């Protein structure tokens, strides 16, 4: 009996340890990055680092502004491209499509979400970049195709599964009675969607967009393969840009040798983590509330 009780306590403890570890991991990562970023924060003010455009690691100048602009613009561009399409697609799949189609849509969404980002990048190089270059040239813009627009298009394709699947889930969580009551009044399907379903799930749809935004914001490999990686503030979508994650990934070889360089990259990662983590926080708080409501 005693042995069995001991085993019970033991498994209890190992589970608690695992859960605590999983729980603390996010904070551990953030603290580790903050600790490593201290040298650069001690040498320059955070405000200066964030607003300066001068990036010359060898001279000790680390201005993050172009990278922050690059990340934000690429992400916003992808949202502009993806959100309307994804919401429409989700509305169709959740509201109009027959059940069987909806179920097979899940497979397509899973497959799209499962394709590794390096393959999206490769697809971007071979398909998106040449098309963007042709469009740019047709519009009279000199460009190489490795531009903000290419990055935005690739990101839009990559965030689509996230936005569509979360939106679908939120729309389906609206009780059937609400929908049927409206339809029973004799209004059209779209009117029921607009006035009942979407009104109920506004917050959830918003959180789907926020999750997509966070996904795009932190995406590294695919973007850096197509966006050009030039540390200048882009003046149009046909200019190259240089997002933060690409900055980190491109410099893994050099950061051991140049003083303060690795510290600067840790700060870049910390900024990235705080932004993405913050967005996730917001999205999950909203989703959690919705789950509790029904």
């Amino acid at each position, binding site marked *: 009996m005693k042995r069995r009780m001991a085993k019970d306590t033991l498994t209890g403890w190992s589970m608690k340890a695992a859960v605590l570890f999983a729980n603390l991991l996010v904070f551990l990562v953030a603290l580790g990055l903050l600790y490593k970023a201290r040298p650069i924060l001690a040498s320059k003010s955070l405000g200066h680092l964030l607003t300066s455009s001068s990036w010359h690691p060898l001279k000790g100048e680390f201005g993050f502004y172009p990278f922050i602009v690059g990340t934000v613009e690429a992400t916003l561009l992808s949202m502009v491209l993806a959100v309307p399409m994804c919401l429409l697609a989700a509305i169709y799949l959740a509201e109009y499509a027959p059940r069987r189609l909806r179920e097979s849509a899940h497979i397509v969404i899973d497959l799209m979400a499962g394709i590794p980002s390096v393959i999206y990048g490769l697809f971007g190089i071979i398909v998106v970049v040449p098309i963007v270059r042709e469009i740019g040239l047709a519009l009279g813009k000199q460009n190489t195709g490795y531009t903000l627009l290419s990055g935005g298009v690739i990101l839009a394709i990559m965030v*689509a599964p996230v936005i569509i699947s979360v939106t679908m889930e939120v729309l389906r969580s609206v009780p059937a009675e609400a929908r049927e009551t409206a339809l029973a009044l004799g209004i059209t399907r779209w009117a029921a969607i607009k006035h009942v379903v979407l009104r109920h799930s506004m917050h959830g749809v918003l959180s789907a967009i926020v999750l997509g935004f966070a996904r795009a914001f932190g995406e590294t490999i695919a973007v850096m393969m197509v966006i050009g990686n030039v540390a200048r503030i882009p003046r149009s979508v046909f200019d190259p840009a240089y997002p933060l994650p690409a900055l980190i990934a491109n410099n893994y070889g050099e950061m051991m040798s140049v003083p303060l360089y690795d510290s600067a990259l840790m700060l870049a990662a910390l900024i990235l983590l705080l932004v993405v983590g913050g967005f996730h926080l917001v999205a999950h708080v909203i989703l959690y509330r919705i789950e509790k409501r029904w």
Partner: protein
Amino acid sequence: MIERNAAPRKIVDLLVKVLSSFAALIGIFFLGWILLVVVQKGSAAINWEFFTALPAPPGIEGGGVANALVGTLIITIIATVLGVPIGALAGVYLSEFGRSTRFGALVRFNINVLMGVPSIIVGLFVYTMLVKPVQHFSGYAGAVSLAIIMLPVVARTTEDMLTLVPNALRESALALGAPRWKVTLNVVFRAAKSGMITGTLLAVARISGETAPLLFTALNSPFWPESLAQPMANLTVTIFNYAMSPFAVWQQIAWGASLIIMAAVLALNLLARVGMSGGRK
């Protein structure tokens, strides 16, 4: 509604239906396009040498990715061995002990956030912990970073699957006097077995395509993997390096490797899906 005529509203309804189905089609269109390009370009690169030879120096015809195949397998297996037990234990805790507690909600929340942390940050974190102190890249650092990425995925799916197990099963086992751990291990696990295998498959699929965290940890290598303490060849970083190189031969190999990875990831996903529908029944 002041408007009496139903026709305009019906037209709008039809318009939305057509537009939205069109939007859904675009998604399938892109998936099809990507699959097509990868299969078309990749199948041209795949031959016997591709699977058996080491990479050739730049500009020389031939060469393969045998070392990267082995390396990816090793890294993925070690990551699975490290990540799955911890993730599964955390999932069990959430489902069996912390289902409606405040602490459980907090953990669930944190695990969701952890799932969203960009993988490159995980890579950088492991770099500062396991690579920087010893001053060289290593296979085990790569495995640890993938394990961290895997952990929340496994925890979430385990919890989901265990929640599906009916409470009556647990209660009848407890009523027989079985201790909690035994109930979990012998009753709940058994009932949720296929679901948990599914979760693991999905997590493996998720990490086997990761590139960014491996850049800082396992790096890559043109040689056979000999020791876990050395930089280790792997498919995804190989794809990345070769795709960005100016050599046509290397680019072709990148396509071949992409086809292999994509086929593996898609197969795992489909397998998991089959397992899932089996588990739900």
